Structure formats: C-alpha cells, structure tokens
C-alpha cells in the first residue's frame, strides 16, 4: 500500500458534524439551494442520466452496424439514434461535464471563496439546462430527430420530417446555461480570489476553466442565433439557408462551426485542467512548466476561434480560405504539444504513487496524444479531402472527446470524490474498470481510423461487405466500453454508504480545497484562507491560513 494511502488511514477522521450534505434535508433544500457544491451534485445526477441515455443510443447503433445491411433497425431509426447520441453527448454531457460538476464544486474551493460570484445565477443555469434537456427529450420521445447533431441546412431547415424545431429549441435553451456558468466563473476568478492567491499561484484547473469560460461566453451566442435561424426558416420559410428561398446553405456551416469548433475546446480544456492537478499530486512534484501550461490554455481558446473553416475544406469554400484555415489549424498543435510534454516531464524523477486518478490522467495523455496527432492529419488539406466525413473523423474526435475529455472527467471524479462525499471509492474496482475502459475504448475506435482511410463514410446505416470485420471489432469494443462505464456507477453508489472515511486530504495534495474538511462545510472554509504558496508546493509542507 502506498504512503499516501497509509497517511489516509492515519488521518482518517470522521467527517465534520455539519457539512454541506447534511446541513438540511428534503427536496426543497436541494432544488432551491444556492450552494455551488449542491448545484454541482444536481448537475452530476443530471449529466449522468444523459450520459447513459447517449451511451444506450450508441450501443444500439453499434449493434446495428454488426452486419452490413440495415437489418436490426431501418435506416430512419438508425439516423435518429446517432443524432440522439451526438446531441445528448455533446450538449447535455460533454459540454457541462467537467465545468458544471467539478468546476462548480471546485472553483470557489480552489481560490478560497465561499461560493461563486452569483449563486442564484448558478442555480438558474441548472434549471435552464434541465428545461433545454426536457425539450430535447420530448422531441426524442415524440419521434426523434434525424438531422445529425450538426443540423446541416437545408436538410434540417426544409427537408427533414422530424422534430427539428423542438430539438433546436432545446439546444438553444441549454446554451444559456453554459453562458451563465462561463460568466459566473469569469467574475468569480477575477474578483473572489483569497488574499495572496495571485494569478500565477492559481491551480491550472482554474486557468483552464477561465479559458473555457471565455469560449462559452463568446461562442455560445453564435450557435444560439444559428439555431434560431434554422427554426425560423423551418417554421416561416424565411430564406436564410435554403437556396430555393434565396438563402445560402454554406452560411449555416460557417455559423455552426464558429461555435462548434471552439466547443471542442470547451470539452477538452477542463480535462486538461484536471490532468494538471492529478499528475503533480501523484508524482509528489511541482508541475513542470506551469506558465507554459497556463498560457497554452489561453492560446488554445483564442486560436480555437480562427479554425472553424477546417470543417469546410470540401464545402465549396475557396481554395485560399482552405489554405488559411489549414495553416491556423496546424498552430493549435503547438500549445497542445506543450501541455503533453510538460505533463510528461512532471513525472521525471518524481516519487510516483499508483492510484486510479493517475491512471486516468496517464490514459488521457496517451489517448489525447493520438487524438491530437490525428488532428494534424485532418488539418492537412489533401488528407482531409479523403477522410472528411468518414470514420477517420469519427475516430479522431472520439479520441479527443472520449479518450480525452471523458478520461479526464473520470480521473477528476475519482480524485475529488473523497472531497465531494467524504468517502473513498474502492481502489481495486476502480483500477479494474479504468483498465476495461482503456481497452474497450481502443478496440472501439482504433479500427475506425482504418475504416475511415479505407473510405467508409460516417452516418451509414448500411455499408459494403468488406468493411464488416472492422465494424464488428468496433462494436465488440463498444460493449466492453459500456461495461467499463457501468462499474464506476455501481461502486460510486456503494462508496457513498460503505466507503471508508477519507479525511480532509487523503492524497496529501496541495491546493486550498484540501485544507478544508471532507465534505466541506456549506461556507467552504472555517477560517479565512490566506495563500502564501503555489498550488503545487509538493516540496513544501501545506501552509494553511
């Protein structure tokens, strides 16, 4: 057993008598709470439900793809399933995942604040999220939508016979919850840092959430208005995107990706923040290249707004636009590479403790590296001409979003679970499921790179026979992955009741959130935090107060 764990046992105190979970009880105390920690848990429950809904859709269409014909479902059902999967996973799971759960819980704790700057706005953002979700779910139950999560016009605005208007209304509403969260984080990080918490002492988790918030606030309104325009064209035949009404279908693609490419960084930057916390803790070292990691987050957020055109290389965009967007997209590789190298260097001459969060973080580094490198492939113009809209793209972005973002999310959930609940999760089961997820993930998505370069287009309910073997591998991997995700669901529930008490700082980690009790009191700290050291002072004793 590792030293960190032994200390845990030694310091294993019962949780404080009063903390944010038991301060009061009842449905009202949760639904009307303005405590950022409780709101984080409301989000946790909601996005977990959405995650398993989106996952179930994926399992169903992967089953369909076991055979080359559309035999388990007809094409229409298949189209609705992949649309549901994309919509739910992106708008209702990945975008809120780390910011709305871990970010909500940790941003005030990490900077030594009592709450976010606008606690009521925070609660409102959850309600907005739920209302948006209900719209989308209603559309799904009434018969679903078959446009793909990208809503390309004029298919979505004129031709599709499904519940497009209702669904885009759901996505439109949900967008406001992320705008509100982003706004709240920006103000909180600027105005509510504890004395001594300078910008360059901030945990990198905060830097990455700051960068994410900028994208949320600046990008989401563009998506919102594009979706409104789709709905207006659909309901009132207003000519915006459909050329028969005098519109331009490619205009929609520009507007959509102006948000939706930066949205990829909304999903990955917070995971990078999580990894930047976990790696130093379990290496017992300061993070290598702090300022480079911090500013590379900002660089990714800024550059992310200038690369949307790489989704349009074959959309009749001009050749010169293609060249410019290819060039700018290449530049995103630089801050991403800087992060990977600095995390790796942090391990050098460390004193590495093997715990589940670290395994997730290392998994993130590896899979993000593959996702990032294949990003260079698709930024290279002639390669993209060939692989655009094939399974190569599907594989590439799942390496970023599942291999990256979800690995980061699960790593973070394990790392801060003791802080959130006051209990430890079972380490053996956690390692086992991390392994299952890693294997299942690679078996699902690696064959898709090969499929894509072979030329299999995405969103195909039926496909030529020669693609079957690779599809069967992918479907087999997906079922393993599905089981891998169910195991943590079970043991997290188990640990809430039976897990051993964690104590305030089970990992002997630095950072203000570990100086308060687990679970923290409603006001977060029982003293006034004063900061005099970096968030990564693993070579010093933790200084408190």
């Amino acid at each position, binding site marked *: 057993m590792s030293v960190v764990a032994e200390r845990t046992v030694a310091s294993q105190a019962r949780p404080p008598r009063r903390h944010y979970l038991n301060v009061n009880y009842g449905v009202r105390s949760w639904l009307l709470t303005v405590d950022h920690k409780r709101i984080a848990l409301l989000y946790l429950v909601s996005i977990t439900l959405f995650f398993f809904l989106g996952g179930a859709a994926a399992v169903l269409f992967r089953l369909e793809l076991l055979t080359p014909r559309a035999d388990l479902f007809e094409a229409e059902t298949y189209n609705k399933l992949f649309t549901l999967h994309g919509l739910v996973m992106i708008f209702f799971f990945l975008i809120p995942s780390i910011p709305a759960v871990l970010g909500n819980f940790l941003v005030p704790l990490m900077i030594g604040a009592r709450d976010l700057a606008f606690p009521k706005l925070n609660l409102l953002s959850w309600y907005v999220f739920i209302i948006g979700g209900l719209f989308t779910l209603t559309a799904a139950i009434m018969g679903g939508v078959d446009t793909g999560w990208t809503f390309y016009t004029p298919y979505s605005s004129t*031709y599709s016979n499904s519940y497009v208007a209702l669904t885009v209304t759901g996505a439109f509403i949900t967008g406001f919850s992320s705008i509100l969260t982003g706004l709240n984080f920006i103000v909180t990080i600027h105005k509510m840092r504890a004395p001594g918490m300078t910008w360059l002492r901030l945990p990198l988790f905060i830097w990455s959430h700051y960068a994410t918030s900028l994208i949320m606030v600046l990008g989401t309104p563009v998506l919102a208005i594009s979706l409104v325009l789709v709905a207006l064209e659909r309901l009132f035949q207003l000519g915006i995107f459909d050329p028969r009404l005098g519109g331009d279908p490619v205009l929609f693609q520009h507007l959509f990706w102006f948000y939706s490419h930066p949205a990829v960084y909304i999903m990955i930057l917070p995971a990078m923040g999580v990894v930047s916390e976990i790696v130093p803790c379990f290496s017992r070292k300061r993070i290598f290249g702090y300022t480079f990691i911090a500013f590379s987050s900002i660089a990714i957020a800024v550059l992310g707004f200038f690369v949307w055109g790489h989704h349009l290389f074959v959309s009749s965009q001009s050749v010169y636009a293609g060249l410019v967007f290819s060039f700018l997209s290449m530049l995103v590789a630089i801050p991403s590479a800087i992060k990977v190298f600095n995390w790796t260097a942090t391990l050098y001459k460390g004193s590495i403790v093997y715990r589940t969060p670290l395994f997730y973080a290392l998994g993130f580094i590896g899979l993000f590296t593959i996702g990032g490198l294949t990003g260079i492939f698709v930024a290279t113009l002639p390669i993209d001409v060939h692989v655009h809209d094939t399974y190569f793209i599907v594989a590439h972005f799942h390496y970023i979003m599942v291999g990256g973002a979800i690995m980061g999310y699960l790593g973070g959930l394990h790392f801060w679970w003791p802080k959130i609940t006051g209990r430890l999760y079972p380490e053996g089961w956690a390692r086992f499921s991390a392994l299952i997820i890693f294997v299942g993930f690679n078996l699902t998505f690696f064959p898709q790179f090969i499929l894509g370069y072979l030329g299999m287009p995405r969103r195909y309910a039926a496909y030529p026979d020669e693609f079957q073997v690779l599809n069967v591998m992918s479907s087999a991997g997906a079922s393993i992955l599905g089981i891998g995700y169910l195991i943590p669901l079970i043991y997290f529930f188990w640990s809430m009741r039976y897990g051993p008490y964690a104590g305030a700082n089970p990992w002997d980690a630095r950072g203000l959130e570990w100086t308060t009790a687990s679970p923290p009191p409603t006001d977060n700290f029982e003293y006034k935090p004063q900061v005099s050291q970096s968030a990564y002072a693993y070579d010093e004793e933790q200084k408190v107060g």
Partner: protein
Amino acid sequence: MFEDLPLFPVRASTFAGQVDTLYFFLVAMATFFVVLIFGTVIFFTAKYRRRSATERPPPIHLDMRLEILWTIIPLILVMISFGWGASLFVHMSQAPEDALELRAVGRQWMWKLQHPSGAREINQMHVPVGKPVKVILASEDVVHSFYVPAFRIKMDVVPGRYTATWFEATREGEFHLFCAEYCGTQHSGMIGRVVAMKPVDYQRWLTSQASEEPIAVSGERLFQQLRCESCHQTTSNEKGPTLTGLFGRRVKLESGESVLADEAYIRESILNPHNQIVAGYRPIMPTYQGQISEDALHQIIVYLRTLGRAPEEKNPS
C-alpha cells in the same frame, strides 16, 4: 482471410499515390510521437515509482531550452505538413483545361450523370483511364458529397451553386462512389460505382449509348423551347444582350461592377436575373427559379459555352 479484411484502400488515380505518400509521412511522424510519449510515460512511471515514505523528489527547475525545443520541433513538423498538403491541394483544385467534362446531379438519394456525348447514367460513372476527367456537380435538394475513395477525391454537392472535382484514373476496375455528406433517410443508399476502362472501351461504351443526343444539342433545344432566343439573339438588341462569345468574358453590370461570365454567373443570371443586370439593359427577364431542373441548367450552360467557342467544339465527336 485477409480478403475480408482490407486495411488499405486501392489506388486508382494519379492523386492516390501522392495523397498516400503524404499520409505515410504523417503516420511515421505520429508513430514516432506516440512511441515517444507512451514510452516516456511508461518508463518514468515504472522507474520513479515511490519506494519509501521518506522519499523527497529533487526539485526540477523550468528549463527554457527544453520548452523552446518542444515548441520549435512540433512547429517545424506541422509547417512541413501544411506546406506539403497545401501544394498538393492547390494542384488537386485545378482541373486541366482539356479534361473530359462530366455533369452530375445529386438528389435524395441518387446520382445522375451525363457525358458530353449525351450518354446518361444513374448511380454509375464510366470513365476512361489515363485522361483527366472533371465532374461538375449540382444538387437538386440538400447538400451531398461526391466521394470516390479509390481516387482520394471528395467534393460537396451544394444546392444553389456549382462545385467541381477532377481526377485521372490510372487503372481499370470498379470502384465505390459514395455520398459522404449526410443527406437524409437513405443516405447510405446513395452509392454507386465508378467504372474505369481503357479509352477504346470507353468510346465503345459511349457508342453503345447512342440513343442520346449530345448535351450541347439538348441545351440548344431547351434554349429554343424556353424562348430564350426571343430576347437573346445573335446580336444584342434592346431587349437583351447577345450570348454569343459571352463565356469567359468580363461583363459590365448596371451596378458598375464587372464580373466574369463563368458558369456560376450564367446559372445565377437564369435563376435570379435581377441580381446581375447587364449595363444598358432593363430588368425585364423573368426568373426561372423552380421552373428548370438542374439537368436542364447543365445542358443550357454547355450549349451557351459552345457559342463563340471554336466551331469544332460545338459538336463533340
């Protein structure tokens, strides 16, 4: 067993080898970094595993040389990828002047093609090997994408405008034609085959489709049927400018702009004539939006291009 499990697509165009070479460069680069990162992470994690409770890792200080090194090396590599890709992309974007010109229309959920000789095909495309072929694409409904993996080409088919792609087949055979842009319920059924054949076989195949008249002739007939010639005659008159010798010229508009009379211009002038009134004329032409199919537009444009071009082009052999 491996017949059921292809791992690499067949190469059947002049682009295929060039794209694959670039792909192999990227695969080599990616493999190097994946091995480097995975190897280093695993090595460090194993070598520096915590062995005693009193272990204190030595402080490692920021090394600017290292930070600069791992900024510069990736920068150089991505710039090579960009430059290499850019030059090939520019080449792939410019069809040779003498390319054989096929006209394609995508619609939910089929591909319609017409050869200059007039031969029509649905969901298949016969092409000669060793000759550049340009495909001009139009859509009757939603966005589609014309994709031939064996040729490494793809181009979206966008309603309301023309797009084009080109290739030169290098081997005989049958290859997949896919729609790559999601276009609705039967998207995965919008597939066809490309048949690349020796030029003599292609000619023989064309003659076997002799029942069709050449595209330009169909276009001329439509031009008369739609009464275009009542205003657009061989010389300009007060109702409309002549279209003889129009193609490829610059046209002065009422708005003071001057535009190139290319296919996009002619298409727009038929569908939305009031957007581009030629200088000196009144906006009296009716719109043909919704009254003329994409096939017919293709034919009229091909016909108009033959006006004022060398006479031998008027009747393609």
